[in-house]
């Protein structure tokens, strides 16, 4: 698989992504989570590159040469604008349908990005990730709070950065170990200490957005939404249909016996599920053709 690394100056910062497949095909946008990088989607990029224009952005803070982002560049809306800029770059006409796949923090971003894409979004896939309002609604759920205690630790100033900068490999290892992702399935290129510590800002920025997001009436995603969930997730409890329905008009929930990184642990299975889902929502391509 030949991935092309593209980087452009966008909104005053270098923004980078990996690209595969034909530039005329529908766009398949993969948004990774913490503490991953775009390589985490290698199995999917390779599988879909013959039929889709696969775009895998580096999340803000991760790309080594992007400059020095201000804190507000980690907010959901700002990250969504970065994605829109990338899409404008790869499809200047804005006519090609977009399928968005988000995992972990990338899923929170996908939920936020969906209304910006409007009709252009032909389908969205959420893999072991929650929207910020969903996470907020789980505040009363003790089990979820125990699973995501680290989010609270990340809100502390300096301490997480000091830890990550002093023992970056250990911190990364701890995250993957807790998520039970086997060594051989971890991204080949590990995220740098700087990248990791900058990505922490996403947790902080997302938390600060909760009051704003709670004031906003939840806008239902009109495109079909598929939620794939590895039920042995150490960080997040599986969502229920009751929980998901306020956020999407048409939703399918698929549960697999896998960990947080279900698409790495069961790539063939997840690719098959994605393949079954994508052509269904491809009907909406007709309106752009």
């Amino acid at each position, binding site marked *: 698989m030949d991935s092309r690394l593209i980087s452009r100056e966008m909104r005053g910062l270098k923004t980078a992504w990996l690209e595969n497949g034909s530039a005329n095909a529908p766009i398949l946008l993969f948004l990774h989570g913490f503490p991953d990088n775009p390589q985490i989607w290698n199995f999917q990029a390779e599988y879909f590159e013959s039929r889709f224009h696969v775009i895998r952005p580096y999340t803000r803070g991760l790309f080594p040469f992007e400059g020095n982002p201000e804190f507000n560049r980690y907010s959901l809306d700002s990250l969504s604008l970065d994605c829109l800029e990338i899409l404008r770059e790869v499809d200047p006409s804005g006519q090609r349908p977009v399928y968005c796949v988000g995992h972990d923090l990338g899923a929170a971003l996908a939920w936020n990005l969906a209304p910006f894409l409007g009709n252009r979004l032909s389908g969205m896939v959420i893999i072991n990730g929650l929207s910020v309002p969903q996470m907020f609604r789980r505040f009363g759920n003790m*089990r979820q709070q125990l699973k995501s205690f680290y989010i609270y630790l990340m809100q502390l100033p300096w301490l997480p950065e000091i830890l990550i900068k002093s023992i970056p490999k250990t911190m990364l290892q701890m995250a993957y170990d807790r998520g039970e992702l086997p060594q051989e399935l971890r991204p080949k290129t590990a995220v740098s200490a700087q990248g990791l510590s900058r990505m922490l800002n996403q947790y902080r920025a997302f938390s600060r957005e909760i009051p704003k997001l709670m004031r906003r009436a939840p806008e239902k995603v009109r495109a079909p939404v598929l939620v794939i*969930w590895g*039920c042995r997730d150490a960080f997040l409890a*599986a*969502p*229920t*249909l*009751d929980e998901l329905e306020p956020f999407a008009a048409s939703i*399918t*929930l*698929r*549960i*697999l*016996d*896998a960990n947080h990184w279900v698409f790495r642990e069961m790539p063939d299975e997840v690719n098959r599920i994605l393949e079954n889902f994508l052509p269904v929502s491809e009907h909406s391509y007709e309106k752009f053709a």
Partner: protein
Amino acid sequence: MSDSHLFDHVALAAQVKRQRKYAWDLDKGVQWSLGVDTTLPFLPLDSQSIACPGASQEQRLALSQLVGLIINSTISEMESVITKLRRVAWAEPLREFSVNPEMWELGDLFFIEENKHALAFNRFNQLFCQTEGIDPEQLDRLLPKAFGSLFLKAVIANAKSGGHAFWWIVAAVEEVSLSLFQDIHRVRDSIDPLYYEVHKKHMEEEKRHHNYAFLMLELIERRSFSLKRLLHRKTDLLFGQLFSSGWVLGELNKIFLAESMTNDHPFFQVIASCLPLMRQLTIPELMSRLFVSAPYVSLVLNTKNHRLTSRMAITHRAFNFPFPDPNITPLAPPEPTERPLKKKYG
């Protein structure tokens, strides 16, 4: 990864396909035109005639038919109860826990099939009444009825409070149905052909879907995180056992009503004539037979006969009633030449 199929959507989808492909139609799937041959028994009896030692050939025939009708009615009532609890015991937990779409599909099929089975068993019982010229309402007085019973109210209350006694009961009923068919199958040439066919059709679908109750129990077990759910997980089996056993015993007691119906039909007269034989037994003897040795009845009452349910109870670490070890009396297949003294009652 576990060996369970609960989250194996490929295996579940294959099961959906299989169930759809082989589903039978209530009207066309069973040869109702065979009619009921009331000169033949419905079930093989044990040498003690369940609880009536020394019963005559005519009494054995009537008892075999009555027990057959009671079994039909019990399964039919249980399966009707299942469909009544669809929302509270199935749809709500599935919405609350996260499952694949195939679990919903399989559940839909499960309820459709259970409803069909209930209708099939009822239809058989009605055909028996038609053939014998018995008023179905009178026969119903002797048969188990769940609606309005304390048992049903208790199961609904349990489900509404987040419990799953219902699925323990369903799992047990599914197992009993399969074991029962093995007994019937062994004597298929000597019993009423339509009775055999209805149970064969029932068994075919039960065999394909009997794992559903176990999948539901597994799902509930995996998702029981709160203290309340943990309490239910521990006690619901016991709750189900106590209420279902109480219900079965109470409903069996109805056969003593036959004594007040002797003038209504000779069938009731023969049944009533068996009751003094039953009264020869002391209460402890009768209870021992019902729970330990009586075929069919002890199969229902004694959960030690339910191998899969017992195994699941261990997995759930659920409290299980300490029933005595079963020792079911071997069944005596009816002689092929055996015929009742009178061809038809009356």
